[in-house]
C-alpha cells in the first residue's frame, strides 16, 4: 500500500485559495502528520480542510473535545515524532497557554496558528484585531521565548508556514503564526512551487546518527555556545528516560534548585543568541527615508500604497516590516530608527504592542505615532494622513 505521500503536494501552479486553506496546504507540504483542533471562528476552515486532506497523506486530523485537549494531543503527537500543529483564535489560545508553557520547557516543537478575532472575551468573531500579539509573547506561566510570524497575504501564509515548521524543528520552542479573521478568509492567488523546490526547503524530523547525544538544549563547556540538538522522539532510542517539566540538564536529569537560573538562561538564550538568524524583516524605500513606518501583518499592505502616494508628494518615507514579530529584532530596529524624523506604527490594536517595543529602543526625542484600527482594515489614506501630519 502506498504511504500516501503522493497527495502531500499540490500540482505546481497558481491556485485561488482562502488564507486558512493556504496555511493548511503549507503545513501539509512541510510534512504535517497530526492536527488536533477544536472549531472556533475564524479558524474553522483549517480543521475542515485538513480533515479531508490529512488522511490522504497518511496523517491524522482529530477534532478533540476542547482546546485543552487539542493542544495536548498535538504535543503528544509531536513527542512521538510527528510534525503537528493546531489552529485556533484568541479565546482558544488563552485556554491553551498551559500546554504551551510546558512544551517550551520540554522543548517539544509544534506550530500554532492563531487566527485572531476581535476581543476581549468572546468579542466580534468575524472581524480582525491583532490583540493576541502580546499574549503570544507571554503565553503561559514561566519564562520562555517564542517565535511569531505575521504574514500579510495568502502566498505568505503558505510560505511562512513551511518556514515556521523548519524553525520548530531547529529552535524547539512554540511557534505562532499570527493570522487574522480577514487574512484567514481572503481569497488570493497562491503560487505553489514544484515538489522538489519545497522538499529542498523542508527540514524533516529525523533521528541523528549518534543517538547517545544530548536530548535537550545545553551549553558547550568550552565555547559556552548553546547547542540545540534535534528534538527527541518517544518510542525510539533517541529519547531521555524521564521527560519532566522541571529544570533539567541535557539528558533530562533534574537540576538542583540552585541551577534553575542557569536553566532559564539556556531556555531563553537559545532564541536570543540566534535572533539574527531567526528574525525576518523587509525594507521598502528605506534608504533615504526620514519618516519610518514600522508595521507587521495586514497594515503593511495599506502602508505600501500610502508610501507611494507620499513619495509622489515629495515626502521621504519608508517601511520597515517585521515578518517575525517575536523575538523582537531590537538591534535591527535600533539601527533603522537612528536619525529618523518620526516613526509611524500602524497596528490593528489600540494599545500598540509593537509600538511599545519600538519606544523601548528609540530616542526620546523621536515621536512615535500610533495609527490604531480595530475590527477594520487601515485605509491607505489613514496612514497617509499621519505621514502628512508629521511631515509638516
Amino acid at each position: 500500500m502506498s504511504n500516501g505521500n503522493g497527495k502531500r503536494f499540490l500540482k505546481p501552479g497558481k491556485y485561488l485559495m482562502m488564507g486558512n486553506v493556504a496555511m493548511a496546504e503549507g503545513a501539509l507540504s512541510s510534512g504535517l502528520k497530526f492536527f488536533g483542533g477544536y472549531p472556533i471562528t475564524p479558524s474553522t476552515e483549517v480543521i475542515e480542510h485538513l480533515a479531508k486532506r490529512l488522511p490522504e497523506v497518511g496523517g491524522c486530523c482529530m477534532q478533540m473535545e476542547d482546546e485543552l485537549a487539542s493542544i495536548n494531543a498535538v504535543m503528544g503527537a509531536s513527542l512521538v515524532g510527528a510534525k503537528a500543529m493546531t489552529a485556533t483564535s484568541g479565546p482558544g489560545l488563552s485556554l491553551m497557554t498551559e500546554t504551551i508553557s510546558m512544551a517550551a520547557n520540554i522543548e517539544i516543537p509544534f506550530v500554532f496558528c492563531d487566527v485572531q478575532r476581535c476581543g476581549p472575551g468572546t468579542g466580534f468573531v468575524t472581524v480582525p484585531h491583532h490583540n493576541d500579539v502580546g499574549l503570544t509573547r507571554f503565553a503561559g506561566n514561566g519564562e520562555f521565548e517564542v517565535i511569531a510570524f505575521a504574514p500579510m497575504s495568502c502566498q505568505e501564509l503558505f510560505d511562512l508556514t513551511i518556514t515556521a515548521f523548519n524553525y520548530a524543528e531547529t529552535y524547539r520552542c512554540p511557534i505562532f503564526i499570527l493570522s487574522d479573521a480577514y487574512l484567514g478568509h481572503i481569497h488570493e492567488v497562491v503560487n505553489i512551487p514544484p515538489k522538489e523546490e519545497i522538499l529542498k526547503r523542508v527540514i524533516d524530523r529525523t533521528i541523528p546518527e549518534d543517538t547517545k547525544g544530548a536530548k535537550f538544549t545545553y551549553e558547550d563547556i568550552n565555547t559556552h555556545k548553546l547547542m540545540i540538538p534535534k528534538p527527541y522522539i518517544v518510542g525510539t532510542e533517541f529519547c531521555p528516560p524521564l521527560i519532566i517539566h522541571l529544570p533539567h540538564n541535557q539528558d533530562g536529569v533534574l537540576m538542583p534548585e540552585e541551577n534553575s537560573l542557569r536553566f532559564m538562561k539556556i531556555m531563553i538564550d537559545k532564541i536570543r543568541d540566534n535572533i539574527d538568524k531567526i528574525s525576518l524583516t523587509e525594507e521598502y524605500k528605506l534608504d533615504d527615508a526620514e519618516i519610518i513606518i514600522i508595521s507587521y501583518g495586514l497594515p503593511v499592505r495599506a502602508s505600501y500604497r500610502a508610501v507611494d502616494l507620499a513619495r509622489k508628494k515629495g515626502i521621504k518615507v519608508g517601511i520597515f516590516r517585521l515578518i517575525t514579530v517575536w523575538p523582537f529584532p531590537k538591534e535591527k530596529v535600533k539601527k533603522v530608527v537612528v536619525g529618523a524624523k518620526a516613526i509611524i506604527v500602524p497596528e490593528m490594536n489600540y494599545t500598540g504592542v509593537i509600538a511599545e517595543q519600538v519606544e523601548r529602543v528609540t530616542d526620546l526625542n523621536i515621536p512615535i505615532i500610533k495609527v490604531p484600527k480595530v475590527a477594520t482594515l487601515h485605509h491607505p489614506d489613514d496612514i497617509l494622513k499621519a505621514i502628512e501630519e508629521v511631515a509638516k
Partner: protein
Amino acid sequence: MSDDIRYPSEKPEHPYLDSSFSGMLLGTLVSRFCAGCGYGSIGQLYTRVFEDEKLDPNLYPLVIGIGCYSQIFFLVHKNAQKMLTLHGRAPAIATGMKMANPKMKPIIFSGDGDCLGIGGNHFIHLCRRNLDCILFIFNNSIYGMTGGQAAPTTLYGAISTTTPYKMFEPRSDGVELALAAGASYVARTTIAHPRTLMKYFKKALKHKGTSVIEVITPCVTYFGRKNLDNLGSEGEPGEIMDTGGKMFEWIKKNSIHINQAKFMSKEELFNKYIIGEFRYNPSKSEYSEEYKKIQNIAMKGD
C-alpha cells in the same frame, strides 16, 4: 509473631530491585511517599508486570499526570519511558501519541482529582473513542499533594481541609462514568488486593480498546488521620485511621465485590466501593483501527 521474623537481621534482597528506576539510580528502593501510602505498592506492581510480561518500553510509554502519584516514576521499571505531563491532560496527550504512532499502547497514570476533576472531559472522551490504552485511576479520595482538600471522589461525611465540617457533595464514581462513556474494559480493585490488580493489568495489556482500572488506595496523612472509619455516621463509634494498617482494613471492609453487590440495596451500598470487573467487551471497535479505515478510503487512487 516474634521480632526476628518480622524484622530479620539479614534483609532479603528485593527481587525487582535491579529492574526499578530507583534501584538503577541509587541501588536501593527509594519511595517519596508517606508511611501507609499505597502508591509505592502500585509502582512495584507495575515494575513486576513490566518485567514479567517483558513489555517493549518503546511501545508502552507511561504518561503520568499530576498528583502525589507523580513521584511513582522512582519506583517503576527503569526501561519504561516515563513522562510527567500536566494536571488532568494525560488522556489527551496519550490520544495524540497513539494516533501519531498507532503501534503504541500508552499507559496512563492519573489520580482521582486529576482524572475525574480537572481532566473529567478528557477522560470521558477517551472512553467514548475507545482508544487503545490503559488508564489507571488511583483513587485515594483526597487531594494529597496540595495538603488534603476534598476531591470529587471524597466520600460523604469525610473531613478534609476544604470541607472542615463534613463533605456533603455527592461523590463522582469513575467506574460508572467510564461505563457510561463507553470504555470497553472497566474494572475496580484496591491496593489491598494486589494480585487482582496485577491480573487486571495483564488482562488490559492484551485487550484492544480503552481499559479503565480504578485502584482504591489509602492516604493516611490527609484522609486517615482526620477521619473515623465510620465517616461520622451514627451508630457504632468509629476509630481514627491513623496508620496504614487501619486504612487497609477500612478499605477491605468498605469494598464489596460486584457479585455480592447485586443483592444489596442502594442504602447498603452507600459510601461503599464496588470492586470487580464491570465490563469486558473485546468486540467494540477501536478508534485508531477505525481511523486506519478512513485513511484507506482517503488514500484510494493515490
